[in-house]
Structure formats: C-alpha cells, structure tokens
C-alpha cells in the first residue's frame, strides 16, 4: 500500500497588487511513495521542489490536486485537533539550513521539547528529559554537549543531528528531508545520511529527500524524481536516471555534474 499519494498537485502564487501576476510554482505533479521507500525529488532552485515539500507538510495550501497520506486527504479529511496531531507526528521534516532551523533565542533542546506536544501520552518532565537524552545518544551526540546550549554554540552537523533526534522521538512514518546536507561540511554528511537510513531500517520510515544534489539522490534513494520548472520530467530508479537518462534536461544535468572518477566530456 502506498503511504503517500500525490495526485495532480499544483500551486500558483499570485503576486502584485494592482497588476496581479500568477507564478506557477508546481504544475500538476503526481507520484506515490511506498512504505519504507526512499525517494528523492531532485531539482535546481526554483524548480518547485521546496514548494512541493511545504504542501506535503501541510504548511501551504495547494491550488489544486490531492495529497493523500495513509489513506486520508491531508487537507480535507483532517478535521479534529487529534487528527492533526496524529498527522504532524506521522509526517515530519528535517530542513536544509541547520542555522535557520533553530530559534536563536532558545536553547537547542527546545525543538525536542516541542515534539512532546504531538505525543498522545503525557510524560512527566523527568521522563521527557530522559527520552530526549536517549534520542540524543541515538543520533551520536553526548547530551552533556548539547543540553542548555544555544544554536550559535554548536556546529552545523550537531544541529542537523538534533533535528534527526527530534524525529527519533516522534518516530514518524514519513520524513521529508529538505536538503538535509547541503549546508554542512562534507565530512559530516555521511553521518547524517546514515542516521536517516538507520531510522528507515528500525522504524520502517519512508523518506523523501528534497535536494539539488543528484549525487546524494543517486546514493540513497530507491527512486528519483527530477523536477524542472514545476514539472516532474523524469521518474525512475537511480541507475536508470543517472546512467541512462531519458529527458533532455536530465541528460544535461547528469552531464554537467563534476565527477570524481571521470573527467567531464567536452570541458
């Protein structure tokens, strides 16, 4: 059964007051994500991939189309607060910029305390703190180094791990990872990816990477969707998309990415 079904999803932004202009950010896209599947939505900035992510997360309203998560239309079938809570817990996100993911006015563990708002069970303060510490350890952090610190006092890699620790607390069924590694150093990138993969192994989580990095998509995903100017132009398994691209744009994209083991042609 598909965990997430997206059907004919579109988003049009209108800008300007007197002379209103419409900008189509996402144009009629459809795809499905299965249980435990890792799927990547690849595109350059402005391709509409982040807008898609925000619609899936129920942060902005689609102009048309349907998003069905676990059999429920997320805009029409979620009515009670309880249902919304359930949805927010089941579909969660890790964002691109570890610096923008933390409000500089609060200690970093605030983001984990927030997670308890979504839980069904009530936890005492001590129980909650223990859970927070456990999940920090799970993502390879020492609670001593983290608790009580402010965002500017810890590194980007550490921040991203805390975001994943928040997901460990919630145990969502689906994680949307919006460029989770683009702003951290290469040497800590692998760790972040492994943590997400571990989550999938242990919890059966489906993961959707939103990224401009075809290398990352190729490495981690079961399936790649290539997006350009609001449309999905290619959809296939990673080897097909990268080694045997069909769409003209994907060909150019693959042909332009600098490789490590081969020199680019015609350079």
């Amino acid at each position: 059964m598909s965990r997430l079904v997206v059907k004919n999803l579109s988003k049009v932004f209108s800008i300007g007051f007197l002379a209103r202009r419409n900008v189509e950010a996402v144009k009629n896209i459809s795809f499905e994500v299965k249980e435990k599947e890792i799927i990547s939505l690849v595109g350059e900035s402005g391709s509409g991939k982040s807008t898609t992510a925000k619609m899936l997360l129920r942060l902005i309203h689609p102009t048309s189309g349907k998003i069905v998560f676990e059999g429920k239309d997320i805009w029409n079938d979620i009515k009670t607060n309880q249902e919304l809570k359930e949805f927010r817990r089941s579909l969660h996100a890790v964002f691109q910029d570890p610096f923008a993911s933390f409000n500089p006015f609060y200690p970093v563990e605030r983001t984990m305390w927030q997670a308890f708002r979504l839980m069904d069970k009530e936890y005492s303060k001590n129980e909650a703190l223990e859970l927070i510490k456990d999940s920090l350890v799970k993502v390879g952090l020492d609670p001593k180094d983290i608790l009580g610190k402010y965002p500017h006092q810890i590194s980007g890699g550490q921040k991203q791990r805390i975001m994943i620790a928040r997901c460990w607390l919630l145990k969502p069924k689906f994680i949307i990872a919006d460029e989770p590694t683009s702003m951290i150093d290469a040497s800590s990138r692998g760790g972040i990816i492994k943590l997400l993969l571990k989550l999938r192994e242990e919890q059966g989580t489906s993961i959707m990477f939103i990224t401009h990095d075809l290398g990352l998509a190729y490495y981690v995903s079961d399936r790649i969707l290539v997006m350009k100017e609001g449309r999905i132009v290619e959809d296939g398994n990673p080897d097909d998309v990268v080694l045997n691209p069909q769409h003209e744009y994907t060909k150019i994209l693959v042909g332009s990415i600098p490789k490590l083991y081969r020199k680019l042609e015609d350079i």
Partner: protein
Amino acid sequence: MSESLVKIENIRAYYKLKNREVKAVDNVSFEIMENEIIGVVGESGCGKSTLSNVLLNNIIKPLTIVGGRVLFKSNGEYVEISSLTREEVRERFWGKEMSLIPQSAMNALMPTIKLSKYVEHLAQSHGIPKNELLKKARKRFEDVDLDPQWLNRYPFELSGGMRQRAVIAIATLLNPQLLIADEPTSALDVVNQKVFLKILLEMKRQGIVKSIIFVTHDIATIRQIADRMLVMYAGKIMEISPVDKIVEKPLNPYTEGLLNSVLTPEPEIKKRGITTIPGTPPNLIEPPSGCRFHPRCPKAMSVCKEKEPKLVEIEPQRKVACFLYSEERA
C-alpha cells in the same frame, strides 16, 4: 619543468582579536607553478579563504601576517609582496599581475553603471586608453561566449550565469598572471558551473592567464580542472599532489576521509559507500598539539599527539604531512 610563479614560504597569518589569536593559516609553504591550475580544498574554517587573501596580500586588520613571506614573479624577478603594504601591492599587482573572481561573482559588478563604463573606469585607473581596453573587452566577451552588445547594458539586465561570465571576462582583461577564484561556483546551478569551468580552462589554454588557484570545498570540481590539489586542514597543508594521484590513492588519512565523503552520481561511489570523519574541526584559537588532525584520525599514533609532522616529498611531486610516511614513525 616550468618555474614557480608564486612561492609561499612559512606563511603564518593570524586574526588578532582583542585577547585571542585565530591561527587561520599557520606555517604554510608551497609554490604555484607557471601554467598550472592548483585546487585548494578544505572544509569551512580551514583557512582556505584566508590563504587567498594572503596571496593577494589583501591584509586588513584584524588579519595580520605574523611570519613568513610570499614571493611573486614579476618581469622575471621575484618580489616579496608580503613585505609591501596592501596599498603598494594593490597599486602594482592587482588587476594586472593577479586578479580575483570573488565568492559571489554574480553580485560582483557595480550595479548602477553600464559595463562599458566600468571598463572605461578600469582603463583610467590603469592609465590605459579607454578605447583600447573597450576593444579588448569586446574581444574577451566573445571569448566567454557573451555578445559584446551586453557591454552596453547594466549588470542587472544580465542573467546570473551571464553575469558570472562577464565577471571572468573583466577579471582577466589585463591578462593577469595569476587568477584567484574563491569558491566561484557555489552560487551557480550545475549547468552554469560547467560553463564556468570550461571558460576558466580555455583562459589558461589561450595563455590569457598563466596560473589559476581555485579555492573550493568541492573535490569533484577540482578533479575536473586542476593539475594539483592542495588539501588544507585547520590552517595547515595536509597534502599537496597531482590530482590524479590523489584520487587514485590519497596518502594523508584526512585526504582519504575527504575523498570518501564525496558524493557524486557514479557507480563507484555507490559501491564504495560513504564514510564520515568522526568529530568536528578544531577551533583555531587553541589547535590540538602535534598533528592537528590526530584527534579525528583513524590511524593516529602516539607520535602524532606530540610532534607536528612536516610537509615532505615522499614521491616525486607528492608532499604529505603525516608520520605514516616519515622516518620518525616510531
């Protein structure tokens, strides 16, 4: 064997703050040969951008040259530019002998005048007849695949990729010997990145610039265009070798770690897997003793903690700073 264009000898460049020093570049020596592209890689905060400022002698407080010297070959003679003031170097070398493509090249053009006007002002500053430089600019625009008509436009009328190309054209107008490119591609999409790299290579092929130093965190990019790669970590050079050899067999464990964290869409990468270097880069106010990488190094030995490895040539053209390859390995 060509001669070296720049010799960097034991350079130490620190940010001197009120009560602390950030040792951004600490005792670094290497040479930039004539007719080579050298790629400088390292993670954020390793001192690679400081290094490009040292090369330009763009030393503005709190950055201070604490020791060492930089020699630049000009008219067949080596000039010790690190002993000159910033203003002197600027007057004599910038634009003419060495030039820069800054990090966000897309915003590097003066926004409210036409490009041709900018070129004219540049001619004035260098005491060249305006028309001569304009003619050259038109030619150079063609070289970078831009219609010379764009010279009569304002920067904001050009697209991002076009602006980037205009910047290269203008940066190389006076045929500088050395071109310093400081993370020039990070703001571009991959298609434009490739165009950019192509133009850079073409400039060198045509002899418009002699040598290029390309600073980046992206090893795959270096792999595409550079002859040699210089790996920096915590203000030190860890390894400097021809790119092919490094990719084939990295010597320093840090280089190896960096290579193994590269993610490009290639089957080899998928087969090889991706690894992480544990821990985080040290702060440069109180760097670790001995080899600065030893706290994170999987192959660290007891000597690494005590002594600092020297950058030594262990194979022709390959220099590594690591006790794994030195006599002192105890």
